[in-house]
Structure formats: structure tokens, C-alpha cells
């Protein structure tokens, strides 16, 4: 078929990362793209470059980069610039040992809800650990461990919640994209089955009444 079976029911992990890569992130450029107001009379040509033209995102920021002045670009662009050694990426404020500890505490004290971490927290953490590990203030191995702890607590909560699956609906506020994607096949299957059983039960009762 035109779409492989495994992509029919859910997204691949690569696709999830792709979605997250379209989100903005703060960077410190190491290059300047902003044009000087008055072009230098001669010899300014070496710094002359064509305007960046982008078709998926506002290209104002990339055309106005000034070395060491923070700006915001989409993540894929930041990763590319980083790969070429043209910027450093600013780790998001929630991705520090202190903030992660706070989130873990929240998960522990609130048994019936998820901590409001960003919807892309897990993917973003994984990507940044891999591609920009030197840009964190805290040691990356400790951050990694904390992220893993947080992930496990949340997973446990989800597993405990599964007993409440029903044929009607489910509310899962603050669950992140990757977490949803991992749970999707199971939850959808079970709820579809429960609904079938419920419908069958209804039909049987109707027949008995007749």
C-alpha cells in the first residue's frame, strides 16, 4: 500500500522528533547575518551575502543574527547551525537539575495528574543531550538520570491509570507527544474492544427484552 502498515496506526519516533524540530528554541549565534545599514564602500563584498529565504518559518531572525546576541530560531535550524559550529543552544529553563527535581516532586505528590511539563519535553531533552551536550550548566549524565526518573514515574502513573480504561473516554492532560505516541496503539486497541463489548452487551440485552 502507499503507506506502510506500521505508519497507519501511529507515528514513528523519527516523525515525532520531526514534529518537535519545528518548535522555536533560543540560541547564541556565532555568526552575524544582519546587514550593516550603510554598506562599506569597497571590500565590503566579502561580508555580503544573499538574504536567507525560508519557506516554513519566519526568516526575520536568521537574517538578523548578530554574533553572541541571543535570538530564537526553529529547532532543526538551531541543530544545523550547531552542527556547523555556528551557534550554541540555550537549554530551556525547565531542563535543569533543580527544575526536574521540582517536577519529580510534583509527580510524587499528585497521584492523579501529570506535571505540566512542555508537550515536547522528552524529545527535546533527548535531542539536546545528544546534539548539544556541552551547552548545559548541569552535568549531562545527572540531567539524563533525572529525566529518566521523571519518565519512569509518569509511566508508572499511566500504567496504574490503565485499569480505569473504559468504553466512553479518557482525559490525559499534560501527557507529552512521545508519551502519547507510545501509549496510543495499546489504549486505542483496548478502548475499541471495550466499546465493541459494550455495544454487543447492549444488543444482547435488547434481544432479551424483546
Amino acid at each position: 500500500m502507499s503507506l506502510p502498515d506500521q505508519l497507519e496506526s501511529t507515528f514513528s519516533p523519527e516523525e515525532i522528533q520531526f514534529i518537535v524540530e519545528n518548535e522555536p528554541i533560543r540560541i547564541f549565534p556565532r555568526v552575524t547575518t544582519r546587514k550593516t545599514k550603510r554598506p562599506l564602500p569597497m571590500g565590503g563584498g566579502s561580508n555580503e551575502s544573499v538574504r536567507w529565504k525560508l519557506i516554513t518559518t519566519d526568516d526575520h531572525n536568521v537574517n538578523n543574527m548578530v554574533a553572541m546576541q541571543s535570538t530564537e530560531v526553529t529547532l532543526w535550524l538551531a541543530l544545523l547551525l550547531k552542527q556547523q559550529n555556528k551557534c550554541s543552544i540555550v537549554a530551556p529553563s525547565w531542563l535543569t537539575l533543580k527544575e526536574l527535581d521540582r517536577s519529580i516532586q510534583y509527580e510524587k505528590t499528585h497521584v492523579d495528574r501529570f506535571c505540566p511539563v512542555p508537550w515536547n519535553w522528552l524529545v527535546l531533552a533527548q535531542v539536546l543531550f545528544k546534539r548539544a551536550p556541552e551547552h548545559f550548566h548541569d552535568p549531562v549524565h545527572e540531567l539524563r538520570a533525572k529525566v529518566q526518573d521523571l519518565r519512569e514515574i509518569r509511566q508508572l502513573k499511566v500504567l496504574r491509570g490503565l485499569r480505569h480504561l473504559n468504553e466512553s473516554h479518557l482525559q490525559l492532560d499534560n501527557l507529552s507527544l512521545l508519551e502519547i505516541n507510545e501509549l496510543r496503539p495499546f489504549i486505542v486497541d483496548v478502548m475499541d474492544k471495550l466499546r465493541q463489548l459494550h455495544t454487543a452487551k447492549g444488543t444482547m440485552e435488547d434481544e432479551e427484552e424483546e
Partner: protein
Amino acid sequence: MDINIDDILADLDRDTTAVEYSDPSQQLPSDGTTVMMNSSIDPNRYKHTQIEISPEKDFKQLMRLWRNERCSPELLPYPSLLMSRMLRRVQEQMDHIENVSMGFLEEYESLEPAPTPNNKLQLLCMEAELERVKFVIRSYLRCRLNKVDKYMLYLRQLNDNEDDPGITPLNELLSSHELHYHEKHSAILLKLLNNSIVKHMPPELQAINDTEGSVSMVDEPNWNKFVFIYVKGIPNDPLLEEGESGKPCYTVSISDLNEDVELSIGGIYVMPYSVIRDLLMQEKIELI
């Protein structure tokens, strides 16, 4: 710059969401954006609406549509104008990249000012972006073709029920490519089935779209399939109510269970598709 008649025509497209409530404080958008004051469309609903189309918004919309399509059991309507804008931009960007890279090659060969590092970097980024756009369009179209195949007979029947106002006609649901593909693929598949099986059957057993009997031969979307939704909401929506938690919400009812469910803005839910279908079509929720 980017302004041409297509964009202006596209402004009238009912399937773009580029309709925004005017905000005088909003500054004019940067280059590549078409702005048009428009009060001619349905003046009762949108007085002085500012319609704005930008590459950025279009791409966001395409990402939403791609995700919705992947998650929904049925085939969703084809966004013709959005797609023609996207395809045009891809084409233009390919030309642009070629020009920049050719210019850069010429400079290089003539040993004039050495190629600037920024140009190289810029090309790399533009190429990367182009691949990303192409990927989404490709994946989106392939997902749609998959559904065109899966519901081949069902879609043919839609065409037969043209008079029913509740049904989107096939030529609005599908693009012209998809229509052509659907028609041709049906023809060759039916030919295969006919030559290898059906024509050897007794006449009364030659139907391939029998919906009577034990199992229907026409696959229809599973309208009650559970889907994950994110409740986005639209500003000043009169349908929003104050929910139990005090947050604005939409109320939907699951009719066969006799249950009402409040969908709070910002919330994530797992719901049967049929229950949230209207909200999806009105772009008040997204499938995730």
C-alpha cells in the same frame, strides 16, 4: 515580492484558517506576506476581518493537516489552495537555491571574491528546509492515497449519493490527482478481480459491493474509533461554556452511552471519532 493573484484568490478559500480578527495594534507582517482587508465575505460573521497568509502559517497548517489525516479514520477534505501555495513555494525555492548555488559557483570559478561562508551555510539550511517540506507533503499525500485505496468502494458510493447534502461530494474531498488515481485504480483492480475470479462466478454472485449478508464487502471508516485530541479552541467562540473546573470548555455528548463530556481548552482526551468530528472540521480541536 511574493504577492501574486494566487494568494489573493487563496484568501477567499474557505479551507484556509488564515482568517484573523483584526487587531489594530498588530504590526504589518514582514516580507513574503500578503495582507488584505476583507469585509466582503459573510459580513455578518466577520466584520473587518484581516486575512493574512504567510509561508509560516501555511506550513503550520500543513503540519496540522498532516497529523489530523494520519490520526483520523476517514479521509479529510483536500485543502486545494493551501496545497497549491505549498507546491508553488517548493518550486520557487528550488529555483532560488539553484540560482544562489550557481552564482556561488560562478564566483568560485572566476576566482573573484571567495564564496562567503554565510552563503554556504545558507544553502545548507535552505536545502535542509526544502527536504523537510517535501517530506511532509509526500507523507501527507501518501497517507491520503492509502485511504483512497482503503475506502475505494465506499468513496465510489459517495459519488452515487450526490444529492445528500450531508455528504461532501467526492470532487471536494479529493484533489484532481486523487480523483484520477481513485478512478483508474478502481478500474484496474476491478479488472483483476473480474478476470481472475468474478467472471467465473454464477451471475448472481458477481457483485463486489454487496453490503447485505454476513460481512459487508464495502469497508467504511470506523467512525467510533478512539482518537487522541488536543482541545485548542478558537477565541470568542460562542459555543464555549464555563466547565465544572471553571475553565472554558466544549460539551459533547456520547449519544449511545447517554453521557455528556466537557472538553476543556488545553486538555488532552481520548474520544470516539464520531463524537468530536464536528469540532475537528471546525478546527477547534486537533488530532495528536
